[in-house]
């Protein structure tokens, strides 16, 4: 009898996070990225004098108290973030990032630059791609901050890879959103333009009416103070656009 070797299919490796597939992928990470793509759209724009991050906050029922859902949050006074993907995973990462930022402060009596915050979060996400018994985080995050060398916007993926962007979008229809941003982005944009562009980008493909209760916007400028815009602030911008 002959022994015939059969090649296992690519997807046979998808069950184990810590095993590469024949084509060199870790399929669990690919699937985590798919989970992110199911998530609500979020985006960020690094303008000349400030960084803007924003997200759709489409809730599954009008009975949900919108105020209790926070997508755009501060990591520390000068850095903020938003996500697309699994909200529960996001909250774990935010907690981790905040703790790391405070530990940094304890050592250096100085706020960590956004780049360092991103490194810490990315390292955490990478750990969950190389450990036993865990799964990767089902979120991509956009982190906004202002360093000694100016505005910073970073995207961190479930693999732990991170990229600095001038403008980026993640989540549902992110490809279209990115194309939209590419057309509208220019280096001389100021933060006011960026907020309007962010809201316009969110409006693309928005199901139903967009108002100040179903989007969230966060901004950080050269003053290095990250703040989440109140619904009233957002209302003003939406009114200006009309």
């Amino acid at each position, binding site marked *: 009898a002959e022994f015939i070797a059969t090649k296992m299919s690519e997807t046979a490796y998808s069950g184990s996070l810590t095993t590469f597939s024949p084509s060199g992928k870790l399929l669990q990470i690919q699937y985590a990225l798919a989970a992110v793509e199911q998530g609500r759209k979020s985006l960020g724009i690094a303008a000349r004098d400030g960084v803007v991050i924003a997200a759709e906050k489409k809730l599954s029922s009008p009975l949900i108290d919108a105020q209790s859902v926070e997508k755009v949050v501060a990591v520390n006074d000068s850095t903020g973030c938003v996500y697309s993907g699994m909200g529960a995973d996001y909250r774990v990462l935010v907690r981790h990032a905040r703790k790391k930022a405070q530990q940094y402060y304890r050592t*250096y*009596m100085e706020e960590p630059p956004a780049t360092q915050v991103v490194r810490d979060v990315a390292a955490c996400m990478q750990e969950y791609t190389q450990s036993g018994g865990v799964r990767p985080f089902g979120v991509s995050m956009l982190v906004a901050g202002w360093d000694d060398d100016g505005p910073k916007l970073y995207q961190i993926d479930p693999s732990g890879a991170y990229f600095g962007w001038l403008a980026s979008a993640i989540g549902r229809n992110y490809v279209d959103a990115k194309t939209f941003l590419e057309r509208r982005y220019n280096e001389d944009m100021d933060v006011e333009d960026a907020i309007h562009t962010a809201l316009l980008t969110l409006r693309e493909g928005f199901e139903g009416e967009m108002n100040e209760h179903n989007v969230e916007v966060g901004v950080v400028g050269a003053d290095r103070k990250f703040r989440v815009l109140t619904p009233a602030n957002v209302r003003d911008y939406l009114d200006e656009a009309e």
Partner: protein
Amino acid sequence: AEFAMSIMEYSGGAVLAMTGRNCVAIASDTRLGSQAQTQSTDFEKCFRITDKLYVGLAGLATDVLTLSAQLDFKHRMYRLRENRDMTPKTFSAMLSNALYAKRFGPYFCEPVVAGLNADGSPFVTCMDLIGAPVDTDDFCVSGTCTENMYALCESLYRPDMEPDDLFETISQCLLSAVDRDALSGWGGVVHVITAEGVTTRRLKGR
């Protein structure tokens, strides 16, 4: 005859830092001893972190060497991670933290930090062996003859000295102070730090 003394006095030594106008100087003696027995006459106690930041360590020699290597390591890692040098303020915070981390088994060193801030203004600070910092705008001293050094600094120090004047003053303070201390002396080294760079000079003692 042997006699017991505090562990902080075992090796002997003196470190002194002083501010000037847009400059700062840090100096140390060069004696290393085992109690009364002198072992070396060229054991410097000031260490370069960057061209704008020096740290002087007085105390037990083994801890002087270990702590200075640790601080250098921490700064190099910071520089690689963050693509920038530590400011004197950040370095002092990190040093204080590193000392307190060994609160119940400390490094027997009392450091003095001297540097220039980003705007060119001088920075000095000193702390005890477990990291309690003292921020001051004139001078900091550490070692086995601090009383002598305080007396001389209080008399000779004036604010806003130019680099050459600062060098003369700090050298006089150091040499006269260590001359009345059996455990410090045998020469000195002075680093004067300005925006243009660092000038290092050796002092002849007795």
